């Protein structure tokens, strides 16, 4: 299960809406081993594409270094789908490389309602998990 503070969930949705129709992506960092997302980090989608995302490599290096220095890890890795459902695609599954992370998918295909779902992706196997929003 993913427990996520309402404020962080709202920031992810706002980022996805803002970058629509391109895919938005980013990270929620939290203390290593805590499974608690605490810090919102919007990342640049180096692909600037409606169908693909990739973290900018230089930015990723700085952000990962920063997390390491602060004893944090990427608790959540999020990105948006802008024309399809909030479910991991074949590419999402094949590139998933953080077995400890919650992969959050947001769909902005409907301009009113935003789908917000969370998954574990380990060795090519996708498992959806419930999302609990905490105040």
């Amino acid at each position: 299960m993913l427990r996520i503070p309402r404020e962080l969930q709202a920031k992810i949705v706002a980022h996805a809406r803002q970058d629509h129709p391109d895919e938005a992506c980013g990270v929620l960092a939290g203390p290593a081993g805590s499974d608690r997302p605490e810090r919102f980090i919007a990342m640049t989608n180096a692909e600037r594409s409606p169908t693909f995302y990739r973290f900018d490599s230089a930015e990723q290096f700085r952000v990962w270094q920063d997390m390491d220095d602060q004893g944090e890890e990427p608790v959540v890795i999020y990105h948006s789908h802008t024309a399809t459902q909030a479910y991991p695609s074949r590419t999402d599954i094949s590139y998933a490389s953080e077995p400890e992370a919650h992969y959050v998918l947001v769909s902005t295909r409907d301009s009113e309602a935003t789908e917000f779902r969370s998954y574990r992706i380990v060795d090519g196997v996708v498992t959806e998990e419930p999302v609990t929003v905490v105040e």
Partner: protein
Amino acid sequence: MAIEVRIPTILRTYTDGAKQVEGTGSTLGDLFTDLETRHGGLQDRLIEGGSLRRFVNVYLNDEDVRFLDGLDTPVKDGDTVTVLPAVAGGAR
């Protein structure tokens, strides 16, 4: 002194869980060959068809080696090499 190599979580199965390993070599490619002698299987996760795998980022100190010379990038004692899996995906 040697070259320090930082290994991401997903590749630590090849390093007995170690977050950091050391190696030697005059280029990045040499360094990976040297690491392979002690951490079998690692090289294949980094290199494909003679060049770096597309979805693996390798940094020499703080520079992405794709913007240097890739596997031919010279390395020396005291350098730090960081491996990070690219974070990527898409709608298809």
